[in-house]
């Protein structure tokens, strides 16, 4: 982005201002969802059997709470597996807000400069690459998603080692461009980061090729990549602490 520093500063301040509100709304949403599940559980109990005792009711409530905790546990375990298998330190963060505009794809996370978040930090989750940090406020940060039209990542096809550029265009799929015209890439091949751009470390999974075509000039191939990450369902993410991304070792073996 080529904006004056004052605008960036203003955006940082505005993210800081809005962060407590977002946390509040998020907490309210969680509470409402829990109550909804609780009520649904009670209805279910009533319909199922009138013989159920108060003791069973409390068990049902606990079951709802446990289910929620279990789901969270699975997600966090998935993240933890990623963290263990990667060679970088990682900070976990929660998504507290999504894009305000209809034409951008970004999220707000609940970690900022005070937690060690820095600009251009790669963001991942258990499934693969999510994006990078583009704005840092003291207690919150803004992350541009890989599917945003302004987002690009240097990538390579894991099976054939063909390098290209994975670009977002605001749609749910990515486009991988500048692939060698004579490469042997196939539908179903895995796309990972190549580490050449200097921001994303090498070997983070991006997605799977679902379509291949020649570009308009017929000088190279381009592929449509289905990302592994479900961008609309992001809840927890990891911020990778990569000091020297160019020298970073490969993550490929980990997956």
């Amino acid at each position, binding site marked *: 982005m080529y904006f004056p520093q004052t605008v960036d500063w203003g955006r940082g301040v505005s993210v800081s201002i*809005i962060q407590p509100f*977002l946390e509040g709304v998020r907490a309210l*949403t969680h509470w409402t969802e829990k109550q909804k599940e609780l009520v649904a559980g009670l209805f279910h109990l009533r319909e199922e059997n009138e013989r159920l005792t108060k003791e069973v009711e409390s068990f049902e409530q606990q079951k709802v709470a446990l289910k929620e905790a279990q789901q969270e546990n699975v997600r966090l375990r998935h993240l933890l597996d990623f963290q263990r298998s990667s060679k970088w330190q990682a900070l976990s963060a929660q998504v507290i807000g999504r894009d*305000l505009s*209809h034409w951008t794809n970004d999220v707000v996370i609940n970690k900022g400069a005070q937690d060690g978040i820095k600009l251009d930090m790669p963001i991942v989750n258990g499934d693969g690459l999510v994006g990078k940090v583009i704005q840092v406020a003291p207690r919150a940060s803004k992350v541009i998603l890989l599917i945003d*039209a*302004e987002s690009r990542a240097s990538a390579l096809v894991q099976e054939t080692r063909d390098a290209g550029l994975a670009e977002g265009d605001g749609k749910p799929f990515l486009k991988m461009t500048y692939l060698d015209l004579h490469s042997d890439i196939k539908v179903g091949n895995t796309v990972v980061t190549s580490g050449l751009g200097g921001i994303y470390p090498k070997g983070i999974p991006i997605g799977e090729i679902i379509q291949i075509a020649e570009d308009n000039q017929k000088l190279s191939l381009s592929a449509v990549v289905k990302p592994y990450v479900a961008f*609309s369902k992001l809840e927890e993410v990891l911020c990778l602490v990569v000091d020297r991304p160019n020298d970073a070792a490969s993550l490929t073996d980990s997956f």
Partner: protein
Amino acid sequence: MIIKWFKWKIFFLAILFICIQMTLVHAMAVGRITPDLLLLWLAFYAFLIDYHWVVAWAFLLGLMKDLLVDSHFGLETISLIGGALVLYQIAKRFDRYSRLVHLWGTFVFCLVTLFIFAVLHSVVSERFVLNQDILIRILGITVYTTLISPVFFFIFRFVFKINPKKKQYELF
């Protein structure tokens, strides 16, 4: 000095809508299409509160949106002001208490605002192309926002205790 049109209640409600737009509204998404609460809020303000200051509020909300969106700075403000000018004319020239006017007024306002933004964005950003896909999305957002507008107008009326019929009699 307190500016005449500025009301803290309206300002905080606008911030609340921004927060809801960034969180809860995504749960209402149909595909990638979500309704726009800020546009609904401005439409309600123009039709049932005070249409004279709708452009000023559009400027303020646009500025707030520009600060929170990672797009070219100023585009949201310009497009909201453009839409608000159309909204001002609709509220001024037609029966602004009519539910039918609310519906088509909201539709036109959303369509104009989103279209202005898309055109400006395609001019300043080479990676944003104003194609059929974008136009369909604009129409989708507009239709979705218009369809849910009666519900939100009802809630807003309840919150602000506005009785349109009563206001209409005051004109005579």
